[in-house]
């Protein structure tokens, strides 16, 4: 089974701090994604990557950046955390162009609280 591992289950940070959320997948997937999940809003795409060193903005990239230096690792960075970034962050991966569908495999999420 594909495993997508997020480094922290719960994280508490202070306003203005730089925050790093790490995600690692173990199935040689080409595509990786960062979503945030908020009640009543579903999942919203922050950034995604189809290849190493490649990144594209999703629907809500403001206040975030990402890094993908290795194929298996995709990091989400909050440059200066704000209270409105308190949320559940979900990392996902998918096989890529070799696939006939786009099944996403999700990690268990990081619940970030910014105080």
């Amino acid at each position, binding site marked *: 089974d594909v495993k997508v591992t997020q480094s922290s289950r719960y994280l508490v940070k202070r306003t203005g701090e730089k925050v790093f959320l790490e995600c690692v997948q173990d199935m040689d997937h080409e595509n990786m994604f960062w979503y945030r999940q908020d009640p009543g809003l579903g999942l919203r795409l922050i950034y995604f990557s189809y290849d190493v060193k490649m990144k594209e903005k999703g*629907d809500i990239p403001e206040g975030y950046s990402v890094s993908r230096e290795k194929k298996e690792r995709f990091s989400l960075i909050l440059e200066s955390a704000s209270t409105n970034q308190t949320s559940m962050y979900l990392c996902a991966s998918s096989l890529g162009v070799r696939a006939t569908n*786009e*099944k996403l495999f999700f990690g268990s999420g990081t619940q970030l609280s910014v105080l």
Partner: protein
Amino acid sequence: QQQVKQSPQSLIVQKGGISIINCAYENTAFDYFPWYQQFPGKGPALLIAIRPDVSEKKEGRFTISFNKSAKQFSLHIMDSQPGDSATYFCAPTRSRKLTFGTGTRLQVTL
């Protein structure tokens, strides 16, 4: 972002009943129509999906009905069980990008 509208927001069904969740979309370029299931404390997981060249797909107790002209697809859960209690998301897809609905919280009571 109103590309995808999912309803109802929440649903309570008795054990053995039928659960129906609907998803309406605007973008006719979507070419893959999955439903994801999420249990508390877990990330979503693919439950069932359909391509637009068929109108219905059944996997066990789960069925997707797809209406291309109406730009709608729905999830039917037959003989609903307490273990089906979860949040369900539609996520129509185009070019490797999924657009998630807002979710439906399903509770199946005994």
